């Protein structure tokens, strides 16, 4: 098999495996998997910018929260129909990406990290400031009646799983196609050597801007899906914690790999889940795990796999 058909097979296998998990795993883990898949969509959005374009953002919670609040506020506080509210969430995430990308891309490297961090922090504080509408840290719950789409009740555990799997699969396949496309390869060129890419005639600024737009909007879709499927919107999701999570997931799973984000979320989720069952200090365990991975598997799980076993891994 060629690398291309192998990667095609890999992605379909992964999706089949996740689908099979629904029938094999106990209900608790099916629930976990739904959550992991939605967060993996967020992580894939982050990976597009960090893993493939080489831009390290510390403010992606802003995009996640833009989708989440754009949808959540308009459906719950504004009373709009679910479909329309989803479109508003999408538009919000896109607009925020448009503005943040325009401004933040004027900076580079550490300054880019800090500027994105600042914008996200301002977003978080804005959510708190308008506490009378957003309910701040406490957050708000979206009525079960509002969490239906095309007549499917998405608060139901089964429907939620399949919806999450559908969203995850579409995103995964789109990412796989994207990174093999000439656009995706140009992004990799920007990551590897921006000046050389420019001197080959690539409009590197435009490439980076499009990457921010796609990445931010995808993160927003993740936020929206989270609100829709799990029915809760809160300021935690806009906090710096949620900007650092996707960085960790992607680094753990393997930056610049298609399956890395899912592996990273899965690993981190179960790490915290398992360790919190025998100790309160799950953050301690997470910290130690980070250090160990950082010292011994710097390419992340999928990256190490690619380096040692499957060089064709996309």
């Amino acid at each position, binding site marked *: 098999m060629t690398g291309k058909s192998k990667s095609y097979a890999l992605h379909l296998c992964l999706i089949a495996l996740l689908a099979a998990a629904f029938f094999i795993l106990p209900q608790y883990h099916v629930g976990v998997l739904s959550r992991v898949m939605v967060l993996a969509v967020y992580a894939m959005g982050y990976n597009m910018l960090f893993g493939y374009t080489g831009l390290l953002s510390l403010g992606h919670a802003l995009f996640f929260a833009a989708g989440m609040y754009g949808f959540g506020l308009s459906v719950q506080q504004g009373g709009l129909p679910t479909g329309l509210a989803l479109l508003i969430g999408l538009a919000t995430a896109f607009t925020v990406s448009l503005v943040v990308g325009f401004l933040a891309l004027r900076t580079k490297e550490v300054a880019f990290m800090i500027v994105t961090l600042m914008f996200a922090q301002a977003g978080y504080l804005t959510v708190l400031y308008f506490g009378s509408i957003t309910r701040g840290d406490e957050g708000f719950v979206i009525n079960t009646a509002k969490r239906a789409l095309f007549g499917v009740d998405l608060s139901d555990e089964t429907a939620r799983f399949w919806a999450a799997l559908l969203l995850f699969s579409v995103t995964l396949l789109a990412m796989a196609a994207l990174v093999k496309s000439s656009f995706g*390869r140009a992004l990799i060129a920007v990551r590897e050597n921006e000046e*050389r890419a420019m*001197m080959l*005639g*690539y409009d590197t600024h435009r490439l980076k801007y499009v990457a921010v737009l796609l990445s931010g909007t995808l993160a927003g879709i993740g936020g929206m899906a989270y609100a829709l499927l799990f029915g809760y919107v809160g300021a935690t999701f806009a906090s710096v914690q949620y900007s650092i999570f996707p960085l960790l997931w992607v680094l753990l799973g393997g930056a610049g790999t298609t399956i890395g984000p899912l592996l990273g979320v899965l690993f981190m989720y179960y790490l915290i889940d398992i360790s919190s069952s025998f100790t309160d200090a799950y953050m301690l365990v997470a910290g130690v795990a980070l250090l160990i991975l950082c010292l011994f598997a710097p390419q992340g799980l999928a990256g190490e796999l690619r380096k040692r076993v499957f060089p064709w891994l996309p």
Partner: protein
Amino acid sequence: MAAMTLLETRALTKTFGGIKANTNVDFLLPEGQTMALIGPNGAGKSTFVGMLCGRIPATSGQVFFEGKDISALPAHKRIALGIAYTFQITSVFANLPVRENVALAVRRDGSRTEAQVMDRVDHVLDRVGLLDRADQVAGDLSYGHQRILEIAMGLGQDPKLFILDEPTQGLAESEVTEFVDLINDLKGSTTILLIEHNMDVVMRTAEAITVLNFGEILANGTPQQIQNNPAVQAAYLGTSHAED
């Protein structure tokens, strides 16, 4: 009929914080010519070509390409017009395979299907003799091969103007010979501007020579004219004294 002018500069000037790197450079490059740009160290050659392809913004003056004023265009747009530039300090995509390095150059204009891109890449790699290393990671190549890869990336762009900034620097003797053959092979199909220290390479490739000294054009003409020019000899002798 005289050959059309491909590239022209008018009063091109660059100052770095009061220090003049280039002063009022008026330069003409006819289409199809292979021209060498020579001059002592610090004469402003790299700054000059940097301004041609837009890497370095000019302080004043204009650049014309195919009769159009491109002074205000950013680097990537100038490149897209048909200028290729190889870096003085090797700059390849070190973590990507050799094939992908050239493919990025070929693919940019978007006119080819991926299969056509790969055909073209193989053709270019074959031409420079890197085809058997196509699947290696570029960073693993020897220095000489990386320099050749740079040239292959330039060829992959199908440039109208090919600017090579000190391409033979650090190459072994046999590689230099291969390079000279390659340039002579390209002659006629593209216009070449070659910055070069190695006078032997210049004499074996160039049809015309421009000499820069202290950021100004000191002389231009055929290789014979330049060789016999007393001002050029003085400039070279002068700086070699200063370097000692």
